[in-house]
């Protein structure tokens, strides 16, 4: 049993590194990532699981970090946008987002890339419907989505070639 009145100690792996944090158990993973670990690539949009700006991978699964009490991330492995810096698939996505105008104001972009990486990890040759579904939990108010879908489709093609 984990006692949890007051702060508790949570050990988790973030972008491959073991981290230990003292936190209230109901603190949101999003706030811990941004404020304790300085990983501000993870954005807060709606704060209620609707927009996907705070997407991260938790034990390989795409999640909204605004909906995760940090105690539930105890022992988990988290990957944020910063953790994808050396990832070839993320690099292809980044290039294609730039080329296709998939990033405009940029607030949704880290979440979009995480959702796209999560999709491509499961399905390396997605069709347009797969892409629409994979990114349906991520809202963008600038692009109208088409440029983003094209960027993901192109990144999938490039990753298949290389």
């Amino acid at each position, binding site marked *: *049993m*984990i*006692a*949890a*009145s007051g702060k508790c100690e949570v050990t988790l792996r973030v972008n491959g590194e073991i981290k230990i944090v003292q*936190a*209230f*158990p*109901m*603190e*949101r993973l999003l706030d811990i990532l941004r404020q304790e670990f300085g990983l501000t690539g993870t954005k807060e949009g709606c*704060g*209620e*699981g*609707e927009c*996907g700006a705070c*997407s991260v991978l938790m034990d390989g*699964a*795409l*999640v*909204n970090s*605004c*909906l*995760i*009490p940090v*105690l*539930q991330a*105890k022992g988990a492995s988290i990957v944020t946008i910063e953790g994808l810096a050396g990832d070839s698939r993320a690099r292809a996505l980044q290039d294609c987002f730039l080329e296709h105008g998939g990033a405009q104001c940029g607030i949704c972009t880290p979440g979009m890339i995480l*959702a796209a990486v*999560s*999709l491509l990890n499961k399905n390396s040759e997605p069709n347009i419907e797969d892409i629409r*579904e*994979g*990114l*349906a*939990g*991520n*809202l963008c108010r600038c692009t109208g989505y088409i440029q983003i879908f094209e960027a993901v489709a192109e990144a999938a093609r490039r990753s298949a070639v290389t």
Partner: protein
Amino acid sequence: MRSDPAEFELVAPESLPKALSLLAENPGAWLPIAGGTDVMVQFAAGKLPARKLMSIWNLGELRRIEVLPSEIRIGAGCTYTDLRGDKTIAKEFPLIARAASWVGGIANQNRGTLGGNIVNASPAADSLPALLAYEADLILVSVRGERRVAYRNFHTDYKKTQLAADELVRAICLPRRFLGYLAYTRKVGTRNAQAISKVCLAALGRLDAGVIADVRIAMGSVAPIPIRLAETEKILTGRRVDSALLLLARKTAATEIRPIDDIRSTARYRTEVANNLVAEFLGRLGASGTRP
């Protein structure tokens, strides 16, 4: 106004028996939280009445899908992603697989659980009409033991259920006898992902020599709880699908639903759409008899 995490307690018992003991020691004191896709939204809005929460996310006992000869038992902690990935559900319970694919987006499907959807008891929940159509039973568990209740009787009024203060939903049981049925489901809303339905229908039907032998029609967002259209089902049984029957079905369905005006839609629109969905389902069912 956002909640202050310092005011909240959260514990994570490491087994189901420990979680149940904690509930039994102080019934009603602890709010269970699984994937948090509803609870954390209330927390964010400063609207969570509970101050003591108990995480059940890591309880492996609630995360299994058991396929028995006569039924499938879905652990209440199974996520929508788990449901979408299960072969038996895909083959025998397409209404569940389809509903799971409409919940939120991928991130919410990775965290939201079927048990959570049931206990949160929203009349607009995506997966609940499908459970009604398949005549699900629930296994509820406490330190006092397990009991089995028909899901149809579980919701007693708006956001009220039969769950006692010391109980958790352990599993959802679906009888494996709907393989030959035409399954039809549709969510009408602003968009499929990340939007709550204005009206949702899940229906099953089977023809015998061109006549409706068995039919189940369930709807969400048209009453304080998800409902079965029992009267409509009754007048349909034993009849052939023709235009007169469609008219009668629309009229009867309209008397069974109690939709309201709210931020998402109006009672009038919901009634019209509900009738259209019933007619659309019957059209499909009728056509299914003309194909070999």
